[in-house]
């Protein structure tokens, strides 16, 4: 999956990929104060490529836990399941439905996306990416966007959560890269000096089909130097 980190203070964005094996669960957001955790399970293509480094990976399952609300949400490209106090409600992506419950609001927009708002100031959008059912290689996958995190505490961590706090970076020495359309540059971030490449990724919040291009500085090698630790530090045993 690709990660895009918008940095409004800089009017710019950073991005990186995380490559992991299907079945691996990554911690994306964890806030011990609000009790909110978001994890994502990796899926690959329908058929693994024999060429090394050619296997793309996506999120095939996302799990959201709001401990204080005794709530769990599991989202797959097929089904959306809510557990509240151990009791289960289940929906499909064919539904257009709004579910409200003591500060929680979940809206499923048929075959497009779902918006999960937990209390006031925490809102996630999960985008459904559907591909042709009989496509020989690709399969449906999910995207996760945090559109409001201002109620998350400063202790929030995770592959995405660590970027909810203000941070600074500096880019200089922009120079031609291996691809003439994608210049390289040097970035100082979190006390690391990194070589980054100017590129673009897509934001699918508004248009899950085409997406909107977001220009960003791409950090190579699974976000090394940008993320705290290494990406394998974020592997967790289970979705919940």
């Amino acid at each position, binding site marked *: 999956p690709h990660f895009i980190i918008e940095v409004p203070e800089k009017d710019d964005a950073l991005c990186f990929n995380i490559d992991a094996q299907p079945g691996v669960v990554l911690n994306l957001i964890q806030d011990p104060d609000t009790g909110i955790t978001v994890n994502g399970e990796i899926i690959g293509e329908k058929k693994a490529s024999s060429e090394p480094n050619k296997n793309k990976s996506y999120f095939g399952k996302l799990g959201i836990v709001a401990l204080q609300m005794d709530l769990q949400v599991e989202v797959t490209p097929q089904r959306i399941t809510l557990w*509240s106090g151990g009791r289960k409600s289940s929906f*499909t992506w064919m*539904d*257009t439905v709004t579910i409200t419950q003591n500060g929680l609001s979940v809206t499923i927009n048929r075959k497009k996306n779902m918006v999960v708002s937990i209390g006031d100031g925490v809102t996630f959008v999960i985008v459904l990416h559907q591909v042709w059912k009989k496509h020989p290689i690709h399969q449906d996958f999910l995207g996760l966007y945090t559109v409001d995190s201002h109620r998350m505490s400063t202790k929030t961590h995770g592959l995405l959560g660590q970027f909810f706090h203000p941070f600074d970076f500096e880019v200089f020495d922009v120079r031609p890269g291996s691809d003439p359309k994608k210049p390289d540059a040097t970035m100082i971030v979190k006390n690391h000096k990194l070589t980054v490449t100017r590129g673009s990724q897509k934001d699918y919040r508004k248009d899950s089909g085409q997406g909107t291009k977001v220009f960003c500085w791409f950090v190579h090698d699974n976000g090394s130097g940008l993320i705290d630790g290494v990406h394998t530090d974020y592997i967790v045993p289970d979705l919940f």
Partner: protein
Amino acid sequence: RNNRKRSLPDTVVDGIEIYSTKINCKVTSRFAHNVVTTRAVNRADTAKEVSFDVELPKTAFITNFTMTIDGVTYPGNVKEKEVAKKQYEKAVSQGKTAGLVKASGRKLEKFTVSVNVAAGSKVTFELTYEELLKRHKGKYEMYIKVQPKQLINHFEIVADIYEPQGIKELNADVSFITNDLMNVLTKSFSGKKGHVSFKPSFDQQRSCPTCSTSLLNGDFIITYDVNREQPGNVQIVNGYFVHFFAPQNLPIVPKNVVFVIDISGSMSGRKLAQTKDALLHILNDVKEDDFLNFILFSSDVTVWKENMVQATPENLKEARNFVENMQTAGLTNINDGLLKGIEMVNRAREMGILLDRSTSIIIMLTDGEANTGESRVDKIQENVKNAIGGKFPLYNLGFGHDVNYNFLEKMALENHGVARRIYEDSDANLQMQGFYDEVANPLLIDVDLQYPQNAISDVTQNNYQHFYDGSEIVVAGKVVDLESNSFVADVKGHGALNDLTFTEEVDMKEMEEALKEQEYIFGDYIERLWAYLTIEQLLEKRKNAEGEEKENLTAQALDLSLKYHFVTPLTSMVVTKPEDNEETQSIADKPGEDATQLNYQPPSNPYYFVDGD
């Protein structure tokens, strides 16, 4: 005469040969249009009486009947009941009153007509009836009673089902099926279309290889369900819409059930034993989040527990013990029994004993009339309505033939519940359990179906206290804003855990195009479905209404019944038929719940009439 009879083929019984009976069912979006056609010929040397019997569901409305004798068609004509009645005053005054339609058993009405046919003449009977198939326990059921009186050259049942949502499963259960007949029963479905066919050959109909009697005698039940990729489905055709709503996979809303049980003397013996059996089974199905209590009434009222209690394993064990030890005695004090139950639910809610997100229901079972305490039915109804205050539904189960069913039905309807008869048969316990199963799993409460205000009119009931698992809410109406491109339906309801709003948006132009291709099967079905549902609901409301309101409801229901040619409790179908060289008339009425059961004797006089309302 005996020698002559033996020389005739098996197809001829008492001079009459029935050479075909065809039951043709077309179901489109749950709306069933059934045509039963029988062709017969009089092979005798003298005029003979040919009779035509069809048993149809009580929920169906007859829409047409014709007799064609030697090429001359005698059609049925639907008229206002009072108008039809006037034509028969003479016959009624002579006591010659027998209708063409009689209540027959639990679910059926029997339509019978007979006509004298001259020697060598042919007669064709054709009866058409329509009904909206209701979803129970996850299936729609179409019931056909098969009971030909003799072997028939060409016998067939053909059902074509068209469901725009796609058919998920389709079955045909035939009570008289044999290995031989299995080969002539075919069922298939693919996408939106389903097909069931049953065409036994002449020899396959024989009850034994050398018998001239038919083994076709019993129930032919087609069940199916549709795909439910979405919780709802809206269809719009020719300015009418129908909205089917049945969400799945929602948790069950905990319920608080008070059973108010009649243990008066008349319940002694088998009735009490069956009630105990049913309650013990029901207790096995009660969920731990549920709360319950038992109120027993005879001359006095006794309670199992002073308050509602949670269905913990310990409490359920105690409840079973209580049920097993119920004893009958005394008279029937319905008023105090019900008021005690209602007070118990209200008090438990006020005291915070019950879960916030839970729903309450009262189920009363009685076999008689109130005959002690407050016994005026009007007063009991008033007391119960005031005590419940619209907060929860009351379901009344009327056990046996002597029960005052109209009173129970009226009281249930005005408290947002329903009444059911429990027939005094060996399976009365299963009937009670079956009813409980229907209301045991509420998935949503206070369900409100909303449509664009200015775009629609004449909408059928669009709010319901409960949506039960395995059922379906159906709302239909007229679309007045045909210029608009989209039609949005919102359904709001409270679930066990959360509040839900389901939205269904339909592109009207797109739908019109899609359905045009299917018009050969679709036609005006949504309009007729709307008319059927509207009449059904007006008639139900009418049971509770008084004075001017009742008059208005009657007028509306009558108007629609006449316009759409439905034989409802407000209309009669006049059938003109030739008898002894002069035309006489018969009447098809819809019998009400209180109409005499079966024991129907074919009338010998050509004047038939009964007011079944």
